[in-house]
């Protein structure tokens, strides 16, 4: 069931996920489209998430935006960074200043993640929550998987100390799985859709930037073809999976396997490395203090890609 409308206010609004923003020239959504998008959200009972540009918006835009309850996403460089609910860090910079009450999305490629791991881990405890998004996960090799396993181990050590000190820092790739009892994925096309600056609806911003298909417009209405394919029960691998924290990125699925409901090997393995690292972290903390006592232990499993179990399902 749709719950969120993401409004990409400008072509240059920051990416907050795996995709790259491929449009360099500003193109601001028209005021009419913004207002009609808000009206659509009100009528459909949707929570609005604005993705803001770095530059200052006209006053009438701000006025319209505030006519509905909303969440704001902006880059660290944006003039709106201080007012944003989620601040996006595009690449790593050790000079970043973190606010203890804020939520950050760190978009990094694997080279930067592996190379700056020690610097990044020091910042985990300095914010309310850090979401790491690896922007080239589809290029991971077996060597990268091992490096990522090491990175997760380093992060775990930092987190374990904070948990023992009674401060529950949140790092999406390690702490989400501990808290979850069922899949909590991106769910683009199912829980959320995106209104782009061109006045059309897309499954997510990536589908706009990558010149993929739209799913309707403010003029013609929403028209999601094959809507079932965005739902978990129609995802042949994911519906069997317990890497509940996995992004299950619909756009990466489309890019790597041609199907929105089928993840790549790389996405599955990365998510399972995170899942397994969460398991070990949870067990380690529990040896030291009482921790998440209402949550079940994460099971020990023998595979990293659930695709390998397909013969058991069919």
């Amino acid at each position: 069931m749709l719950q969120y409308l993401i409004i990409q206010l400008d072509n240059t609004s920051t990416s907050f996920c795996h995709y790259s923003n491929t449009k360099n020239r500003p193109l601001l959504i028209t005021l009419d489209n913004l207002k009609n998008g808000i009206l659509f959200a009100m009528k459909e009972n949707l929570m609005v998430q604005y993705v803001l540009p770095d530059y200052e918006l006209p006053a009438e835009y701000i006025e319209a935006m505030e006519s509905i309850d909303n969440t704001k996403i902006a880059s660290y460089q944006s003039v709106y960074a201080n007012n944003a609910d989620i601040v996006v860090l595009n690449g790593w910079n050790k000079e970043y200043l973190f606010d203890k009450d804020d939520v950050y999305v760190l978009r990094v490629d694997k080279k930067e993640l592996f190379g700056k791991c020690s610097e990044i881990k020091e910042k985990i405890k300095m914010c309310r929550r850090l979401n790491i998004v690896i922007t080239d996960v589809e290029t991971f090799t077996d060597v990268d998987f091992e490096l990522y396993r090491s990175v997760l181990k380093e992060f775990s050590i930092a987190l374990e100390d904070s948990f023992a000190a009674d401060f529950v820092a949140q790092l999406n790739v390690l702490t989400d799985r501990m808290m979850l009892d069922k899949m909590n994925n991106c769910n683009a096309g199912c829980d959320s859709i995106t209104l782009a600056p061109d006045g059309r609806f897309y499954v997510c911003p990536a589908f706009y930037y990558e010149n993929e298909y739209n799913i309707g417009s403010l003029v013609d209405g929403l028209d999601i073809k094959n809507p079932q394919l965005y739902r978990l029960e129609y995802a042949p691998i994911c519906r069997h999976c317990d890497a509940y924290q996995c992004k299950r990125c619909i756009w990466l699925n489309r890019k790597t396997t041609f199907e929105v409901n089928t993840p790549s090997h790389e996405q599955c393995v990365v998510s399972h490395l995170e899942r397994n690292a969460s398991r070990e972290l949870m067990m380690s903390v529990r040896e030291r203090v009482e921790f998440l006592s209402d949550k079940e232990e994460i099971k020990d499993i023998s595979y990293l890609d659930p695709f390998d179990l397909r013969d058991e399902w069919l």
Partner: protein
Amino acid sequence: MEKIKENSSGWSNGMARNITFIVTKDCQLACKYCYLVGKNSNERMTWEVAKQAIDYILSHEDDFKEESVIWDFIGGEPFLEIDLIDKICDYVKIEMYRRNHHWFNSYRFSFSTNGINYHTESVQNFIKKNIEHLSIGITIDGTKRKHDLNRIWKTADMKKGGGSPEEERGSYDDVARNIPLWLEQFPNAGTKVTISSADIPYIKESVLHLYSLGIHEVNINCVFENVWQEKDDVKFEEQLLELADAIIDGEFYKDYTCSFFNENLGKPLDRKLQNQNWCGAGKMLSIDAAGNFYPCTRFAQYSLRDKRAWMIGNIYDGIDKNKLRPFLVLDRCIQSTLECIECEVAEGCAWCQGENYDSADTSTIYQRSTAICKMHKARVRANNYYWNKLFRKLEFKGIAKKESVDYAKLSNSNNLIC
């Protein structure tokens, strides 16, 4: 003891890896129902591409673990490229031996041909050289009027994109003359017949005609594309009922088969226990003239009306296994509508993954085309009639298999029990 001839299950019982070379996209014919919408005379495979494809496949034994292999050659018309094919097959044999590959001694070369060049010296030499490892199917659609309705020669204007009905020339005579030679060399060979809307009135006479030519196995199916007209299902059922009468009254069932009639047809399917995908796309590998790999020929661009080709790699970079994942986890229910899942006569209702993809509302293989629905239901009714009549006849003669008779009775008494 009287017997009922059963449909053959194919070489290696369908468990072999199928590797298809699209050696040319050209054909002498322009069959009206042909799904290959992008045929042309330009895209012919070179020896260099073929060799590199073979080298790739044979050097990646871990990715091709099936016990056996069928090296399949398709077009267009494959025998237009018999010299290349001969070179490919020689190289395959030598390399499988040299590499001590597990497919050596467990391979077939397979062809679907229009039969026009079958008698030529180069094709015959190839057949004689490889006959122990060959399967060749010649497509003949039935009687002359049925065959010539669709299987017409390509005209000079067609080559330029034009053509008119006045110019149409059927290919029956050019194919039929090669049937005796073909059956002499492959006595158990079967033919493949395709039915589209215009062919329906000729089904019965065509199957009987093929029997009269000495073809004992007629594999026949309705096209999966959405070509069907109002009342086609009624006409189709009438034809099949007449065909059923003719086969049973003429006792052709002893030595001939027609794939329209099958005991395992028209029952509901269990959501869990009978949830397998029908189609083998993704478990095959198809290679075109440019050296691109596809999960099946139907995903190459020349087969697709509305969608982009589904490439899974090429001979230079290898197979992108991520592009195969959707095929290998695809099951029946996930791609089917609720109506299909709950269908009372679902068993035997076929689909083509490529046609599903081509006709889907989005770029997906997870949306099953239902264009064939009414035709399948008509087939099921005629099939029920066929087996009821046949078993009753055999029962009276006291020679039916007891379990078959009981099964037929039981399966047809569901309504009474409920």
